[in-house]
């Protein structure tokens, strides 16, 4: 785009050309329309608790997958213990509700903060580790947290699990009806995914990508790699913790089995099948791996085979994922207004 384009008549006060602006909101508006109007309308039309349940579960896993995308996709740190932070969040919400009688308004942010604090503490000694060593360290962290949930019986009630007595609410206003619960989950997940989107499609995200591509080179260029890795890890745990609070209040009963290693692998599979480094891919991956097994229920015992086959073929035929990073970046830059911008004077103002 040259200077003469920018001084053309269609230009807006902020210095961005009109077509740029228009393209920047059409797709986000469509997505918002689908999540907040079309889908709830369809759910209300069917009026079946089963569909609400699956929609909520899919949204929670969209958030888990998106939060793992930040650390594994963007920063390139293979994370094998993500479900444990999801569990820390869920346990924070469940215990604050059952022991202190607090509601969702308080437990939601608290779950994210506690998960982030735990992640920060365990991340301190592991941040100098690279590649496979970091992966093994996160595996150990995940197992450690899982064993704490399982064996610290006095505090977490161990394998007995915790009954969460309160559903969704906002400042004492109950949101436990089907449609209200859906909107609660949808609003929280959308806000978090937008936040993750801003983190990964910005200078900040680019710095994280530079660590993934070559951390020594990034270090030499003045990028504070250790600090950035730590931030990505902690932020991702925060969002996983938020997902945990949603799950705890939605289900009403949690036990350590919900947060074991296989859940971490499920979330990792969502990120990889969707496309490493691609946020829309992480969302699509989560939807696929939650909706597909449910949709295939009719096949009986073969459904696991079918799910495995779909995963295998998608990795084999689309090794970059269902929506690879390059096309995903192209998409968010063209359609979500995250492209490089200039002011009217031709001065670069950066991404978005």
């Amino acid at each position, binding site marked *: 785009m040259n200077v003469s384009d920018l001084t053309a008549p269609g230009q807006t006060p902020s210095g961005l050309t009109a077509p740029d602006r228009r393209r920047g909101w059409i797709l986000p508006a469509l997505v918002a329309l689908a999540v907040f109007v079309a889908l709830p309308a369809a759910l209300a039309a069917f009026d079946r608790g*089963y569909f609400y349940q699956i929609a909520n579960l899919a949204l929670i896993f969209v958030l888990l997958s998106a939060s793992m995308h930040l650390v594994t996709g963007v920063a390139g740190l293979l994370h094998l213990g993500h479900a444990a932070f999801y569990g820390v969040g869920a346990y924070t919400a469940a215990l604050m509700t059952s022991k202190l009688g607090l509601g969702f308004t308080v437990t939601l942010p608290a779950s994210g903060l506690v998960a982030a604090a735990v992640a920060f503490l365990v991340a301190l000694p592991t941040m100098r580790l690279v590649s496979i060593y970091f992966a093994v360290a996160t595996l150990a962290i995940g197992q450690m947290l899982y064993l704490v949930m399982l064996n610290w019986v006095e505090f977490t009630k161990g394998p007995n699990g915790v009954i969460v007595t309160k559903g969704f609410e906002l400042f004492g206003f109950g949101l436990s009806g089907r449609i209200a619960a859906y909107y609660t989950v949808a609003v929280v997940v959308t806000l978090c995914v937008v936040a993750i989107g801003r983190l990964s499609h910005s200078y900040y995200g680019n710095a994280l990508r530079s660590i993934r591509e070559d951390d020594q080179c990034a270090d030499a260029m003045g990028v504070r790699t250790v600090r950035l890795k730590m931030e990505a890890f902690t932020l991702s745990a925060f969002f996983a913790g938020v997902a945990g609070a949603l799950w705890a209040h939605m289900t009403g*009963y949690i036990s350590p*089995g919900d947060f074991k290693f296989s859940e971490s692998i499920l979330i990792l599979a969502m990120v990889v099948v969707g496309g490493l480094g691609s946020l829309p891919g992480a969302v699509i991956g989560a939807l696929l791996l939650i909706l597909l097994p449910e949709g295939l229920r009719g096949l009986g015992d073969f459904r696991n085979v079918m799910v495995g086959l779909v995963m295998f073929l998608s990795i084999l035929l689309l090794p970059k994922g269902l929506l690879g990073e390059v096309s995903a970046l192209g998409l968010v830059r063209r359609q979500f207004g995250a492209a490089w911008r200039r002011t009217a004077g031709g001065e670069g103002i950066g991404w978005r």
Partner: protein
Amino acid sequence: MTFRRLALATVAAAAFAAPALAADTVKLGYQLPLTGDTAQYGQDFRKAAEIALDEFNAAGKPFKVEIVFEDSRSDAKEGTNIARKFVDDKAIVGVLGDFTSGVSMASAQVYKEAGLAQLSQTASHPDYTKISKYQFRNIATQAQEGPYNAQWMASKGYKNVAVIAEQTDWGQSVVSGYSEAVKAGGGTVAFSEFFNRGLKDYRSLISKIERAKPDAIYTGFFYEDGAQFLKQLQQLGVKTPVYSTSAAYSPKLIELAGDAAEGVRLTSNFLPTDPAPNVQHFVTEWKKRSADAVPGQFPAQAYDAVRIMLAAVEKAQPNPTREKVRDALAQTTDFPGVTGKTTFNAEREPVKELVKVEVKGGAFVPVAE
């Protein structure tokens, strides 16, 4: 996003495409792990349920019953999805399952809200039936079994005991139910510890037990872990008597542990050798469908659970509703099952008759003392 709507539409279409049932068919739901880590139990439950159902439908009743089996993989996510699905299906008047307490309790939150009776053949968590008036179970709880075993061991003169159990909600209830009874009876618990399910090496646990020098060891495990434990106990030459719960009562325990299982004493409420005609009928049917294998405790509990549910459905005729089925279940008194007579008390807990069993010569033999 359009993908999700598409998938939902597909799911919806598939659900509506299901053939409409005749008016005289009653539907029940059964959620159980047919795949995954605990599939062996779920597969057995389905087999037991099919035996009970075939008998019922062949008996010339004025109505037929259909059971919808759904695979929960012992995963709470899937369990709650299934629960919602069952609740949505207005034709379903009662639900059986799940296998683990964790999944049963997560699903129970849905059944509680919807008012649909749930009868689990195995959920043993102390709080399970406290969730609401819709939760029932057909398994002797450790609050009943623990004191029974404590008394049995005390009568043998074992005053100083060690207790180990798997680290699950059920294992927790094994240890608490038993230990409290031992202490109340004037005995002492010299050692108590939990192990994780599927542990391969029990040697360090065994040497810790031996250091405490107990008169006897009380164990809370299922047959897979039990066989490993007993074999390693034999390898280390430990001769301390071992007692266990009805959960370990499976022919596979003897099959896997071999002569290491010799002398193990446990309680049960199902004996395949019992000459009672209903027991022999079940054992014969089971053998026919499973290459001559003998059924264990859990399939027998599932068989009875399904029959108790079927009896409740029959009692709720004509036009059974969810509420009528729940009330009929709650009134179950002295139901003559293969696991003895079952009565639900006011807390919807079954009161079971227990039998003492010892492994002798590679078989479970009932003993008087």
